């Protein structure tokens, strides 16, 4: 059955996050930006709301409410401040990485520290500064010696690198297999040989933190390898798609924020003796952005609902038809690129319709515009998403090369 009505429980949760966004995040949006972090009192309130573990299955310590509930809540947080979802304490993408790639026991153990009510961060390190010219794959290498793996290499653009207590690091296990020869490892911050580079200055999302890692002879036991069940590559692609869908939900929240601020402004601001919203060029822009918001939100919901339907056991699903993984990937890829591009348009037109005032930091739209571009570059980019959507549609093998580093390596693969 097609329905756009959230459950009563979801509505209550959405309302409480919306309240937090309205009374705390939005009024303090510039404070978070200047501090380049979320202040302790806000962290504390957010932890109590418990957004970080919403989608994590109950069996491994989460709330087990599914990806759909997660995207509903992430949208509300981002409506308050798009950086909040990235900067609030919690396992972040690490939760998705360990649930998709690890065994149940590994996921439970890795997530246990995050359930004790203290603000802690986790991170996933996949990015690297330079694509390899000589072969496809990652330059960070993992070598095995008996029960011990040794990791060497450099990771870049890692979200919350300087805050995380534990990382999932992606590395090349078998260089001869390119992007089909990768492995994932749990690495504690305290591991010998691991150094965290100072965080970067960024275009937007200042309250979040992006930085690099250097791994020099870092040793982890075989038990820390996340093997991805019987198909590591498929699990890795699922991780990327789901993670990026959560980011896309933040883009929806951002779009809505920019749209609402701008809609109010065009009512208020007058030129040539009437509200600027009464000029057709302005009104049509408002209509176009309204369509962007509605379409992006619906698409993110659809993709999240598809994953939840796929992840249900036969018993839980009952009569409902099985949803195939390709369909989930296609819907996610469509939703991700659409939501990010819509957010960019909403931010851009938001500043445009504010005129000179939009360029000033007195108004939030300039921050939203910067955040939108930054958000678009977290997780799957539009270029990745397009290739993934087409591959899912055309029956081309789905491969980590479709979601990992650069366009050149993808082309080399294809």
């Amino acid at each position: 059955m097609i329905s756009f009505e959230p459950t009563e429980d979801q509505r209550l949760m959405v309302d409480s996050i919306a309240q937090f966004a309205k009374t705390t995040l939005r009024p303090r949006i510039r404070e978070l930006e200047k501090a380049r972090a979320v202040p302790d009192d806000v962290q504390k309130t957010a932890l109590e709301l418990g957004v970080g573990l919403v989608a994590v299955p109950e069996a491994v310590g989460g709330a087990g409410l599914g990806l759909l509930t997660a995207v509903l809540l992430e949208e509300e947080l981002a409506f308050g401040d798009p950086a909040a979802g990235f900067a609030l304490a919690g396992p972040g993408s690490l939760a998705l990485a360990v649930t998709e790639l690890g065994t149940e026991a590994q996921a439970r153990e890795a997530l246990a520290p995050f359930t004790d009510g203290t603000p802690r961060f986790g991170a996933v390190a996949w990015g690297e500064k330079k694509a390899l010219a000589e072969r496809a794959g990652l330059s960070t290498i993992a070598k095995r010696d008996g029960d011990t793996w040794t990791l060497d290499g450099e990771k870049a653009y890692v979200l919350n690198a300087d805050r995380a207590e534990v990382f999932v690091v992606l590395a090349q296990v078998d260089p001869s297999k390119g992007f089909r020869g990768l492995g994932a490892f749990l690495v504690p911050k305290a591991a010998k040989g691991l150094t965290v580079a100072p965080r970067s200055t960024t275009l937007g999302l200042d309250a979040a933190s992006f930085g690099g890692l250097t791994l020099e002879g870092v040793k982890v036991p075989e038990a820390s390898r996340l093997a991805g069940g019987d198909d590591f590559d498929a699990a890795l692609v699922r991780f990327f798609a789901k993670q990026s869908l959560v980011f896309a939900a933040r883009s929806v929240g951002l779009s809505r924020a920019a749209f609402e601020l701008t809609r109010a402004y065009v009512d208020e601001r007058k030129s040539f003796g009437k509200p600027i919203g009464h000029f057709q060029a302005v009104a049509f822009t408002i209509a176009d952005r309204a369509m962007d918001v509605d379409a992006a939100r619906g698409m993110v919901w659809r993709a999240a609902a598809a994953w939840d339907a796929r992840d249900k056991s036969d018993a839980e699903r009952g009569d409902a038809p099985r949803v195939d993984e390709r369909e989930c990937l296609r819907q996610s890829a469509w939703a991700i690129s659409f939501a990010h591009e819509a957010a960019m348009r909403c931010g851009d037109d938001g500043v445009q319709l504010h005129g000179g005032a939009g360029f000033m930091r007195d108004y939030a739209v300039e921050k939203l515009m910067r955040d939108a571009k930054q958000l678009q570059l977290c997780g799957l980019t539009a270029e990745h998403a397009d290739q993934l959507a087409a591959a899912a549609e055309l029956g081309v093998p789905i491969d980590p090369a479709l979601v990992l580093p650069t366009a050149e390596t993808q082309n080399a693969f294809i």
Partner: protein
Amino acid sequence: MTIEFSLSKRQIEMRDNVRMLATGVIRPQSLAWDRAGGVPEEFLRNLARLATSMGSSAMRSGLGEEGGKEKKKSSDSMQSNLGTVLATEELSWADGALLLSLPGPGLGGPPVRATGTPEQKERFFGIFKDQDAPLRWGAYALTEPAAGSDVAGIRTSCRKEGREWVLNGRKCYITNGARASWNVVFATIDPSLGRAGHRAFVVEKGTKGFGVGRIEDKMGLRASETAELVFEDCRVPEENLLGGEEKYASKEGFMTAMKTFDNTRPIVASMAIGIGRAAYDYACDFVKRHYVMSRPIPRYAAMAERLARVGRGLDAARTVTWRAAWLADNGHANAKEASMSKALGGQAAIRACIEAIEICGAEGAIAEDHQLLEKWFRDIKVYDIFEGTGQIQRIVISKRLISNLKSF
């Protein structure tokens, strides 16, 4: 309730039935109808019988159910807005013009249903009940040579003389207007009154003073009839004033015309999406055959990107269309969302048809090899024009978002 997008068992069954019909029976005839400029009546009759047995309202009347019932329908039912939208996409995928040619009240149905008195509903819907009678159509005549988007500016006049109304004027671009058993015709008692002066009549075929002008020769949808209607001292009995005199005490007259659109726009949107998906599917097949199997490296990625954007645009429109239909099924206002669906659907589908031709390269534009692609390219443009142009949809949307906005 919960947010959910998988179809119910019933909906899947219905969609699969319609799909079978679409691929096996309709699509193979599509080009021939385009060439001949019409769908044979025999085909329409058989299809109508089949549709009744399948219970699909989308196929029975083209646009919505013909009965006068107003009861709320579960989204699961095929008569619901959602059910209609789902079936419409499938049928339009097979052939756009066919959907507009289906016998039944067509676009004339919604205003009669929304505004007609019980006797009028009985009279005007009654003629469609008998399956063995000759095929019959209803139609909706609002547009005039000098008033299309600016609906309030219609000039066709009406004045009361005794127990009759006398109509004078011209209507143009009326779908099924010539063959219709009746047309819902909008006229004005006094153009200076604007909307308050509007009246809607059901003008029956054969009424004295009512004639058909030219039948249009069109870019696309050539199998659908588009007619000019002429009224010269056309005498319409007072019983044919839709809703009776008291309906027009306020601005209701104009609202009658507009109410129709909240339900029909998502349907028209899904017609567009159906044609867009036809082109998208075709292009996907082409790329699979020419690029995936043989994989010339640089071009595959470029083609993949184009396909992804086309598929994505159609899916964005589809999602918004489903929501507009779902809102209506659940008794919520949906004027804004209905307009969004129409604006997005038309544009996404036009994009799809243009891109599909480009993806298939030179072959795409050469009618001999890719006749269907060429046909869809011609068919699709009008979906951003009729039932309110893309610009008009944006006016409807922005009026609901910006304070005190009257018009432009």
